[in-house]
């Protein structure tokens, strides 16, 4: 689990946009850049080199929300 205080501070290092926390997948999602950052062992890994791209399906799903 990632701490709420920390979560409220984090933004995407690429877009500087706020992130959405996916607790099931332990990931932080940035809609603006389409980058998904892993949370490993409770520590958010805020490195572009470690992020994955949102898939098309995930993007569509987010747009519907």
């Amino acid at each position, binding site marked *: 689990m990632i701490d709420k205080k920390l979560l409220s501070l984090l933004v995407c*290092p690429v877009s*500087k946009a706020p992130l959405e926390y996916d607790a099931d997948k332990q990931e932080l999602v940035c809609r603006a850049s389409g980058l998904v950052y892993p949370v490993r*062992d409770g*520590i958010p890994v*805020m490195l572009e080199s470690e992020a994955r791209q949102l898939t098309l399906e995930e993007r569509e799903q987010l747009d519907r929300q």
Partner: protein
Amino acid sequence: MSDRKTTDFGYEQVAVEEKAGRVADVFHSVAARYDVMNDLMSGGVHRLWKRFTIELAGVRAGQKVLDIAGGTGDLSYAFARRVGDDGLVVLADINESMLNVGRDRLTDRGVAGNLQYAQADAQYLPFPDNTFDCITIAFGLRNVTDKDLALASMLRVLKPGGRLLVLEFSKPNNPLLEKAYDAYSFKLLPFMGKVVANDADSYRYLAESIRMHPDQETLKAMMDNAGFVNTEYHNMTGGVVALHKGIKP
């Protein structure tokens, strides 16, 4: 390829995109023995350098502090005690191994709640503009590929009036001391690294990277250029280490 951009990795020139990985290897390699080696290499004096940094940081209850390249958490530990329950300290490091060692160590020392951890790159900080009252980077800036980019990023996330403190090896201000220091760091340091940590290369990189780092006046000018005001520095141990301070206007 002649147009390929290079940067220093100790005395070696490497491709810009290669440096971070090479530095990462060094710190993965030294993480477990980092504290022991610091005490041994500096004769325990690194504790005094850090104590002075903590004093000059002037962190108060309720403030937000970012400790970049926080490694094994010496500064974060002190700050967490000072900011109290209403404040927050974020220990950031680009290196997973250092971060894990730091978290284990601070959890053992009973720090929790107001101390959080993030794996982050000083050049691309993952925080909004105007967030922190104080940022420290101790023995970290030397290893950053683009120091100007990192200084700009730190300025961005500081609140107006917030302060940056850079603790880093620097240039001894006395030629005699410099000679002794050279002998120490290029002969004794890699030897100790080999004997204690079985890793002479990492400690050779340490010695070389210190020589490649900008001296006191150069770093001060870089901070001025980045947009910091009231920049100043304090030499410690004859300039072996310098503490730079700047304010975000």
